[in-house]
């Protein structure tokens, strides 16, 4: 069975598109072969800047012959129908068979699809692959109409076996497939023929092309690391850059150079970002000082002067770039020294955050107010949290962040330090954006946490207030990420915040009022944030309405408040949804969370369900507990009691919640349940108080044995109605005891 080798040789393919292109090439070709009935062995795809290649082992020599039988019209059907059938099958009337069928005598066609040779199938599959290739962006060139990522120059397509290699006859828009390729653009440009994959890879290597992107990346990393190591330095790891650079060269030559003396005092993040973004340089760090002292660049060729000219050129370009960076840095520091960070932030008033949510300055004011409100909940001083919030977005106005947006926050930290802020304020400038993704670390410093929470809660309440919620796959303002950020901030720090009360409801109202969002029908004269915030505390009389004809201002107030609460509830539900996703990833089941989220027998959520830390503590304890033997005991004991009770309550139409009387107990088993309940309740109450849910559930689990013995010994539905009611009331007491941690009826299985 022959091996197949395909190479699509083009002008330079963008590095970022190469991994996707390798996958697509392998998938389209192998799927195409299989679909055409051709078997094949392993398939491996490769890319360099100028070529996409695919090697498929052991391709079948031909596809099998297939026979198909198709039922046609009845013999007495109109001619038109028969002719149609003949056209569809490509047969003549003589070829048809006539058979008896339920419906009468019917024409049958036996069609033979002869097997096709591999060459023919490969030619077709390759052409289809080229024509349908899913490039993220493609183009035409010259007079042609073919689309490829950049002009496609040649196609190599050969099948090779012991007998030798043969070119697959194939032509796409005037490009005829052959058996030749080319080496490195500058170092070995002459075309050469190949006989199979091993030959191809070996000859390419001699022609200064490393075919495998991973091999190029490994080579670059190893060379760079050893060069740095030889000088007592270390390479700053950058996986994404490594992959990109490996996609930019066919023959990587690693060169290390000096960053000019005059730039070494720039913040390392600035050096690193400027070098990476503009030059695709790696940073080389002095492990003793943490300073970045050198750079590594990867050239695409060897030269007679061992890269001296190339390195000198790169150094010069870097110097020009870093001069710009230093210029920004010095200008920014001058602004900060003259006017403080608040001065730098002045321009935020002219920057629109969102047309309906005001300017960045408006937003900063809201974040400041909210950060002050929630500071104590996370152990921060309110004044410090407010100070940090006031300056946390200032660096968006700096020249450095204007040039390098990815340095936002980091420059804020440097400039805050320069402006004399301390006590966690500079760190908050950097950390309040975090966590940026599901794997990003969560800040722990109290001031950072306060500002980070306020920032995200303001984003969420704001977009909720203007009804811009995420739908389906659309989440243009990254609100899911913001909600997950809040969840991780709260959980990661064990913060005890009632999101609705402490954060959202009043913030929604204050925001709506500040922005004059009509739907809330707030009065026209804007309150300041604190006034609006205070007005929500229900004890104070207020007049939130802007309608002068309103006589009953308290009724209108109530309406506006309930509107804000509705919004906050909706947002809380969004948090709960995100939380479920988050906890599912940590192995906590959906039904376990629901059991902790809802009140028993109701669609209402528990009043404390906006305290995410408590909610998760409960869910975690329940999840862990259910995996133990005691967990099974708890569940079985509870269910047995609850099922009988529920049936009786439904049948009788009453709730047996009067409290059982131990004096009416008739048997020892019954009395034992009373005693067990007394013990359990005594243990549960303090455990619940201490939020030691495991201890509470252990106490509940101890009820199982007495419950089982009780059911063995006594009949609930006895004729004595007094005794029966007492027993049902006893079951009710069991249910109440067991429902304190979670609504166990929601646990599946």
């Amino acid at each position: 069975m022959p091996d197949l080798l395909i190479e699509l040789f083009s002008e330079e393919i963008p590095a970022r598109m190469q991994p996707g292109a390798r996958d697509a090439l392998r998938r389209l070709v192998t799927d195409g072969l299989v679909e055409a009935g051709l078997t094949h062995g392993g398939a491996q795809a490769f890319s360099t800047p100028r070529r996409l290649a695919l090697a498929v082992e052991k391709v079948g020599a031909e596809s099998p012959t297939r026979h198909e039988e198709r039922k046609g019209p009845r013999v007495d059907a109109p001619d038109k129908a028969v002719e149609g059938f003949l056209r569809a099958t490509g047969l003549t009337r003589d070829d048809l068979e006539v058979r008896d069928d339920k419906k009468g005598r019917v024409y049958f066609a036996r069609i033979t699809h002869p097997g096709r040779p591999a060459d023919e199938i490969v030619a077709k599959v390759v052409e289809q692959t080229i024509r349908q290739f899913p490039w993220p962006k493609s183009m035409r060139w010259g007079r042609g109409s073919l689309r490829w990522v950049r002009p496609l120059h040649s196609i190599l397509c050969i099948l090779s076996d012991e007998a030798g290699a043969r070119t697959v006859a194939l032509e796409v828009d005037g490009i005829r497939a052959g058996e030749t390729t080319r080496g490195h653009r500058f170092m070995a440009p002459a075309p050469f023929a190949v006989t199979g994959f091993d030959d191809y890879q070996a000859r390419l290597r001699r022609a200064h092309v490393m075919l495998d992107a991973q091999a190029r990346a490994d080579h670059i990393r190893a060379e760079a690391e050893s060069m740095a190591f030889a000088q007592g330095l270390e390479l700053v790891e950058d996986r994404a850059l490594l992959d990109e650079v490996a996609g930019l060269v066919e023959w990587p030559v690693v060169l290390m150079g000096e960053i000019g003396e005059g730039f070494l005092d720039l913040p390392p993040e600035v050096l690193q970002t400027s070098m990476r973004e503009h030059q695709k340089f790696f940073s080389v760090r002095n492990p003793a000082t943490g300073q970045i002292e050198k750079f590594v660049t990867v050239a695409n060729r060897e030269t007679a002067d061992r890269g001296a000219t190339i390195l000198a050129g790169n150094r010069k370009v870097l110097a020009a770039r870093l001069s710009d960076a230093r210029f920004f840095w010095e200008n920014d520091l001058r602004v900060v020294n003259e006017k403080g960070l608040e001065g730098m932030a002045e321009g935020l008033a002219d920057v629109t955050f969102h047309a309906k949510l005001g300017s960045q300055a408006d937003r900063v004011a809201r974040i400041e107010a909210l950060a002050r409100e929630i500071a104590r909940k996370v152990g921060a001083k309110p004044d410090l949290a407010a100070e940090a919030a006031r300056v946390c977005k200032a660096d968006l106005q700096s020249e450095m962040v204007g040039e390098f947006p990815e340095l936002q926050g980091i420059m804020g930290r440097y400039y805050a330090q320069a402006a004399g802020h301390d006590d966690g304020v500079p760190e908050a400038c950097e950390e309040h954006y975090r966590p940026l993704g599901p794997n990003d670390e969560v800040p722990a410093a109290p001031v950072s946490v306060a500002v980070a929470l306020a920032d995200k809660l303001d984003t969420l309440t704001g977009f909720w207030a203007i009804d811009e919620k995420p739908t389906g796959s659309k989440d243009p303002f990254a609100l899911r990420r913001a909600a997950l950020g809040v969840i991780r901030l709260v959980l990661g720090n064990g913060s005890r915040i009632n999101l609705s009360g402490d954060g959202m409801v009043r913030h929604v109202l204050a925001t709506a009022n500040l922005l004059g969002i009509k739907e809330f029908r707030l009065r026209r004269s804007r309150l300041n944030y604190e006034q609006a915030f205070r007005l929500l505390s229900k004890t104070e009389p207020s007049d939130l309405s802007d309608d002068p004809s309103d006589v009953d201002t308290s009724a209108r107030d109530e309406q506006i408040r309930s509107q804000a609460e509705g919004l906050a509830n909706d947002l809380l539900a969004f948090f709960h949804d995100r939380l479920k996703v988050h906890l599912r990833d940590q192995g906590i089941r959906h039904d376990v969370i629901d059991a902790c989220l809802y009140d028993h027998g109701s669609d209402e959520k528990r009043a404390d369900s906006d305290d995410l830390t408590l909610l998760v503590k409960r869910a975690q304890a329940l999840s862990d507990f259910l995996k133990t033997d005691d967990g099974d005991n708890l569940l079985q004991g509870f269910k047995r009691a609850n099922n009988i009770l529920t049936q009786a309550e439904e049948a009788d139409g009453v709730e047996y919640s009067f409290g059982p009387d131990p004096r009416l107990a008739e048997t020892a088993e019954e009395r034992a349940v009373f005693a067990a309940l007394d013990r359990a309740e005594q243990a549960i109450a303090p455990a619940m108080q201490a939020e030691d849910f495991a201890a509470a559930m252990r106490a509940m689990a101890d009820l199982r044995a007495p419950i089982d013995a009780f059911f063995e010994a006594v009949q609930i539905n006895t004729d004595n109605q007094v005794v029966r009611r007492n027993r049902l009331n006893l079951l009710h007491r069991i249910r109440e005891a067991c429902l304190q941690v979670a609504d166990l009826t929601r646990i599946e299985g």
Partner: protein
Amino acid sequence: MTTQTDRPQSFQDVLLRLQTYWAGQGCAVMQPYDMEVGAGTFHPATTLRALGPRDWAAAYVQPSRRPTDGRYGDNPNRLQHYYQFQVIIKPSPPDLQALYLGSLRAIGIDDALHDIRFVEDDWESPTLGAWGLGWEVWCDGMEVSQFTYFQQVGGHDCHPVSGELTYGLERLAMYVLGVDHVMNMPYNAPDAAHPLSYGDVFRQTEREYSRWNFDVADTDLLLRHFEDAEAECARILDAPEADATGRRIVMAHPAYDQCIKASHIFNLLDARGVISVTERQAYIGRVRALARKCADAFLQTEAGGAGGVV
């Protein structure tokens, strides 16, 4: 292989070598367009000639103005007035990359010593309603050219596709000549009777235009000029196709001049900082609408292929 005399000695030497090289490749060497533009692409020899079915090959230098880049002649690399060298060939020849590398050799960049790379950089001009795919070409980590296969201009698909090359002449020449500050670059031969540096030629104008661009240009007047150019462009295109004697003459080029004007005035207003972020999009949209109409009109002309290509 490379000897001292192979290397250009001055800014104008680089320019002349590029002209000679591309003339040798069969391009019509044209002269700069006589209007203020932001880039060589605006020259009708590129914008309009990229449209329609007729073959085309041109090379020219184009003085370009970017008011926001003015630094009073102090910055070693930034200028509000600079030169672009532009090559456009339709249809794009299959060996355009090789031809381009030849042009680098012509100005003394020996690819045996340098690292030349084609790094993805797609080109888009929102004001021209144009885009293409290509690269920025790096020489030892420095961007020396933009290389683009035009896909659309003025909202029309380009067919055939033009290959376009743009060289930032000052930057390229500084590199080739080993100069660190643009103003110190020899403009003519250093051993000429009257050797002139780039600064001798342009320092004064950089200072004057920087001040004018940033502080003095009358924004109200500019806004009026913008409206005038916009109105005139529409008026020209609305004129009947036949003139008084009955000859059919579609005036795509005069209309396009007004589009160029509007675009440059927009750049000046932008430099003055009087255009807000939201307005900015609206202005760009207005210029694009003009470019689109001019492209439509050009396709109705003989040069644009109306009536078929012989």
